[in-house]
């Protein structure tokens, strides 16, 4: 446990070594929210309007909530795993008395804690300059479900990153391409990170719901907004848990096979 605490500390300090990089990255997050915010602001100009089952307060809470949820779920360092495999740097960790997965999860947690603290200030800043109507959930049960769904979302995304990174065992140059296609494009659109998925036609929603993506952003936000209650929330959490088991099984299988073909190129 002590060594992982040290990894957490070192990783946290590393983020401060490249301060401008980090600040620019956060500025980008805020800029991306502007597009979505003003888009919905234009749709809901009339405060009494209800579209896709959302009122103005609900949709603007969804948009601002994205900053917090995305910074917790998607802030991650594990995307670098693909590069480490292709450059043969994975060997350094295989000979050390640390679990490679725990090492990266610790680094992810460090990145998430830093991003999350900045996200709170950014949300506050946007709240002050945009003055949106905001919904605050007060039901303690729903808040517990929301926190639980966030932890599950974080696990889902981490497992997905490890599975995608493992592609590099067989295609050393395809790591970034695979992440671009799956971890960035597919996740951004199918998780609800850009828009709430219920604006899509029913048949598309049904297709997306058969994937683990909606449980990364859309489901936690729906729980927070109180659009998914009691048994439906429990059902959603159970499905998230099931997806975690499935992805964990795939990840262990892929990594076991991958390590057998790993030849430490470049070392």
């Amino acid at each position, binding site marked *: 446990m002590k060594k992982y605490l040290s990894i957490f500390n070192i990783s946290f300090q590393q983020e401060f070594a490249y301060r401008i990089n980090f600040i620019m990255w956060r500025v980008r997050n805020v800029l991306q929210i502007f597009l979505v915010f003003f888009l919905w602001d234009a749709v809901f100009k009339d405060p009494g309007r209800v579209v896709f089952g959302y009122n103005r307060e609900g949709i603007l809470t969804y948009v601002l909530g994205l900053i917090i949820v995305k910074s917790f779920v998607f802030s991650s360092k594990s995307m670098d795993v693909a590069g480490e495999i292709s450059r043969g740097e994975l060997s350094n960790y295989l000979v050390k008395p640390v679990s490679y997965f725990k090492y990266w999860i610790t680094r992810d947690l460090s990145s998430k804690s830093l991003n999350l603290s900045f996200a709170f200030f950014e949300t506050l800043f946007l709240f002050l300059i945009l003055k949106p109507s905001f919904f605050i959930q007060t039901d303690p049960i729903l808040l517990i479900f929301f926190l639980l769904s966030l932890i599950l979302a974080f696990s889902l995304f981490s497992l997905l990153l490890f599975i995608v990174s493992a592609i590099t065992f067989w295609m050393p*140059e395809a790591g970034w391409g695979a992440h671009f296609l799956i971890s960035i494009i597919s996740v951004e659109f199918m998780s609800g990170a850009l828009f709430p998925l219920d604006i899509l036609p029913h048949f598309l929603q049904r297709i997306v719901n058969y994937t683990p993506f909606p449980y990364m952003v859309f489901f936690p936000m729906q729980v927070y907004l109180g659009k998914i209650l009691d048994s439906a929330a429990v059902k959603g959490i159970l499905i998230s848990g099931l997806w975690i088991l499935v992805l964990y099984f795939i990840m262990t299988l892929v990594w076991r096979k991958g390590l057998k073909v790993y030849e430490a190129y470049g070392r």
Partner: protein
Amino acid sequence: MKLMADKLVNQLSVVRHWLGKLLRSLKLPQPQKLKVSFVLSFCKRLFYYFRIWILMSKNSFMTVLSRKKILFLFLLGKILRFSFFTAFIYFLVLGAKGLSGYTKEQVVFFFLTFSLIDILSQFLFREVYRFRSLVVTGDLDLVLTKPVSTLFRVLMGGADVIDFITIPPLLFAVCYVGNLFQPSYLQIFLYILLFFDGFLVALAFHIAVLALGILTLEIDHSIMIYRDLVALGKLPIDIYREPLRGILTFIFPVAIMVSLPAKALMGLVSLQGVFLSLTSAVLTFFVSLRFWNFALKKYTSASS
């Protein structure tokens, strides 16, 4: 009559002054006198640069084409991103029955125009994304000593084949959706004119990012911030509140770059607007050139 002629001569001398500055930065012969020999040598120089560009692009294309799996992954990713966003806009505007007074076809056309300018600038200026390593390692020295404009080399040195593949279908989509508005010849002309005007703004932004790269050694985030800012033009600029709308029109002219061409095709732009847009695009371009020249003088050739 004489007064008008004098005015015209004055204006022409201003244009010649600026043209001279532009040519100096491109290391092209200066227009001492607008003679046939000058025009010929200008064309010869342009052809020389065109041949270099073809050569560099061929090399860049061959590098990417040799890794077909990666090409496939990125191409698929770009197509998916484009399709997802188009579907999102379509279903949103369909469900909301319009957006700030625009129909779903109009909103999709705004997005298509944005995509075309964005893809075209990425196709031509992809080398900007690789500029940082040249500055950090000091390898920019090798570019500076070559008998080619440094700006040309670091801006257009590596055309992107993935973007090149996506241009024809996108162009078809722009023509198809644009045709739905049944535009007049004047509207089509203004669209093309403002499209190139917008492209000039995109060029200016890329030059500014390069200049910032020399001064701050930071490119990756600057270019991504530029892209995030420009992405605000995916939708009609009218949806934004003041002061953001003013910033996107006058400080970072994203409105000129993306929204105005689309509006021109829909017949929603006045001739004054066209004139203002052309003026500010040319101004932005020259400011970025001056910024580049300023930054280049600060290059220290560290670590070379």
